């Protein structure tokens, strides 16, 4: 993903040396970021510029003074003293080569209280918004079809927008001080050649391509805190006339699959199973985060994403915090005639250092292998009413998953590949295991362990909207690929 930060209207790619951008009413400053143990750190000395801090080292610790108040750091400790009160950081303060580093969370958790100001850390875009600046976060999605394209902006918090058609582009002006904008990397195609910074610090420009003729916009508000603006780009009349009878336009050679909500023969219904719930807490993080809460939050995000992007029917085995038996979970999927069953979990390990996501599909034990052979047989012949026989598909509910193992393996691989580009993976990313909840699923099924709650850094990640969205997008990509496969093999 390309990150475009519009504070000064310049384009800034994440591939460059990472920096933390600090937006304030005085303007924009950047601090170099050092990544240590997968955590973003900044040098304490660098904070002097934007925040006016002074430091004094004493007895293995560092005292940071600002506005007459002090913060005390201890090397390799996650707990810091902030004006006499304790605050905890997701990773320890570090002293390297006589210089002190703190995780970026130090800004909102330790510095903000002593400065008496708001420091809003936007981790995904490495942005800190100070004071009362209005910097909405805008996540952009682009859907390209052969006859139209659409751009969707998810805007948090709700912000008024004005669209103006200009020569060669659409200008989208947000009523804000600056924008925290995420745009997917986009190969140029017929309707849109690029999306990037607009003429002001709070505008986005959609550069239109040769096939663009007109646009239509609509907005909705999925929840109280965010709004959604969709701009459909349609062809001009000459384009329609030229494209229809003559040679069809060359198919787009996107690396990403083209996501258009078209009916699919093989993939119509998805059942998502938020692991554990109710009395079954599942794993528990060191700070008390419960697996059952994380799995429900991720499942709901995933449902929203699948419904809005793929137009599929999505059901959750539980909508709230309740105990659901394993059999009820797979039976729910079978009763809804789901084409895919996904169980969402978070992992735990004895050592807190262990982390990463994993994807599982069912492994077959002896009894299941026998059932599988039976399932592969032509079916069972039963005497039918009024004489004669008929062949029916007789399969034990217990071992329904046995016949879908190849497809489940493919699904698991697709999910793993989707996750790998977005989140950290465990050393053994795809595995087979005799998991109880998968046994009875009468459709391709996989269990996704989205990360280790027992790892303190991952516990925090798993609870964050950013990480949960990345997981949801990874699964969405996998479903798009699976749909392509099912449509090709469907009769």
């Amino acid at each position: 993903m390309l990150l475009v930060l519009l504070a000064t209207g310049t384009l800034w790619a994440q591939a460059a040396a990472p920096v933390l951008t600090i937006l304030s009413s005085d303007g924009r400053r950047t601090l170099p970021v050092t990544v240590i143990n997968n955590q973003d750190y900044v040098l304490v000395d660098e904070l002097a510029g934007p925040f006016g801090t002074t430091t004094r080292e004493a007895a293995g610790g560092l005292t940071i003074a600002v506005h007459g108040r002090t913060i005390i750091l201890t090397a390799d400790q996650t707990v810091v003293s902030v004006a006499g009160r304790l605050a905890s950081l997701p990773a320890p303060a570090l002293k390297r080569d006589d210089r002190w580093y703190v995780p970026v969370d130090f800004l909102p958790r330790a510095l903000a209280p002593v400065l008496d100001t708001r420091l809003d850390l936007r981790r995904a875009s490495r942005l800190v918004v100070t004071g009362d600046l209005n910097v909405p976060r805008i996540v952009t999605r682009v859907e390209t079809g052969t006859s139209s394209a659409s751009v969707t902006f998810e805007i948090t918090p709700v912000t008024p927008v004005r669209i103006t058609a200009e020569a060669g582009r659409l200008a989208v002006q947000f009523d804000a001080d600056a924008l925290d904008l995420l745009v997917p990397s986009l190969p140029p195609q017929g309707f849109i050649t690029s999306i990037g910074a607009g003429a002001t610090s709070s505008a986005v420009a959609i550069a239109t391509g040769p096939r663009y003729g007109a646009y239509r916009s609509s907005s909705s508000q999925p929840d109280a805190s965010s709004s959604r603006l969709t701009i459909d780009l349609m062809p001009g009349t000459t384009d329609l006339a030229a494209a229809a009878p003559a040679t069809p336009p060359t198919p787009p050679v996107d690396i990403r699959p083209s996501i258009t909500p078209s009916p699919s023969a093989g993939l119509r219904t998805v059942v998502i199973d938020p692991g554990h719930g109710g009395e079954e807490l599942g794993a528990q993080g060191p700070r008390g985060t419960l697996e059952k809460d994380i799995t429900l939050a991720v499942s709901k995000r995933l449902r929203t994403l699948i419904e809005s992007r793929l137009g599929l029917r999505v059901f959750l085995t539980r909508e709230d915090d309740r105990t659901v038996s394993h059999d009820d979970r797979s039976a729910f999927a079978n009763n809804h005639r789901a084409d895919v069953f996904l169980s969402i979990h978070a992992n735990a390990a004895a050592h807190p250092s262990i982390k990463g996501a994993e994807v599982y599909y069912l492994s077959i034990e002896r009894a299941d292998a026998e059932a599988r052979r039976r399932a592969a047989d032509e079916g069972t012949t039963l005497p039918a009413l009024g004489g004669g026989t008929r062949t029916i598909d007789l399969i034990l509910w217990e071992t329904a998953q046995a016949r879908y193992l190849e497809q489940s393996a493919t699904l698991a691989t697709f999910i793993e590949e989707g996750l790998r580009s977005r989140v950290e993976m465990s050393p053994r990313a795809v595995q087979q295991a005799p998991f109880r909840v998968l046994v009875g699923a009468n459709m391709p099924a996989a269990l996704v362990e989205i990360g280790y709650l027992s790892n303190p850094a991952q516990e925090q990640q798993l609870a964050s909207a950013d990480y949960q969205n990345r997981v949801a997008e990874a699964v969405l990509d996998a479903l798009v690929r699976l749909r392509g496969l099912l449509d090709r093999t469907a009769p």
Partner: protein
Amino acid sequence: MTARRLFAVVAAVAGAAAFGWLVMSALGSLLRAPALPPAEPTTVPTAVVAPPAAAPATGPHIKATLYFASPDGQRLVGVQREVPLADGPVAQARVLVEALLRADAPDALSSIVPAGTSLRGVYVSNRNEVFVDLDSTVRTKHPGGSMQELLTVYGLVNTLLVNLPTMTEVQILVEGREADTLAGHVDLRRPLRKNDALIVSADPTPQDPS
């Protein structure tokens, strides 16, 4: 299964257990008669109840491979330990599980069973399936997580099947009953085979004389 048939099976099970108890008592052995596993009727009458592992501190010992979690928490590592030689597979299975429950993990490795878990009984069916009955600590003290649960289950299964090559499968029971899962993931409703995929094979087995 009809109620009559169930009753007949229960009666047969109770009869077999009572008969075994009488015989063993006559021999002067101490014997507990825990509830038998709800296995198929054909396997039950021949199930053998293990005597308590009261092996003397001295006497013959064998080298056994016990499984622990690898440092990255993703695999099982076999560690050789001396355990008392027991008379027959049932008693030997009991000795192995108790050794695994009591063992301190070598450096960098960690135990796969929750601390404080105790063994209630071991049975072997005539199909050479081992039934291991653990107390509820294995469930209540389990930290959760698929990976940790896989390591617990297959650490036990592999420890038994690697050291007792004539045994084919292991089923874990909790408090004398067939269990659905330990922590919500791994299906324990039927016996499991040895899992070689989870074992670290590239490294030589660490020697740990203790």
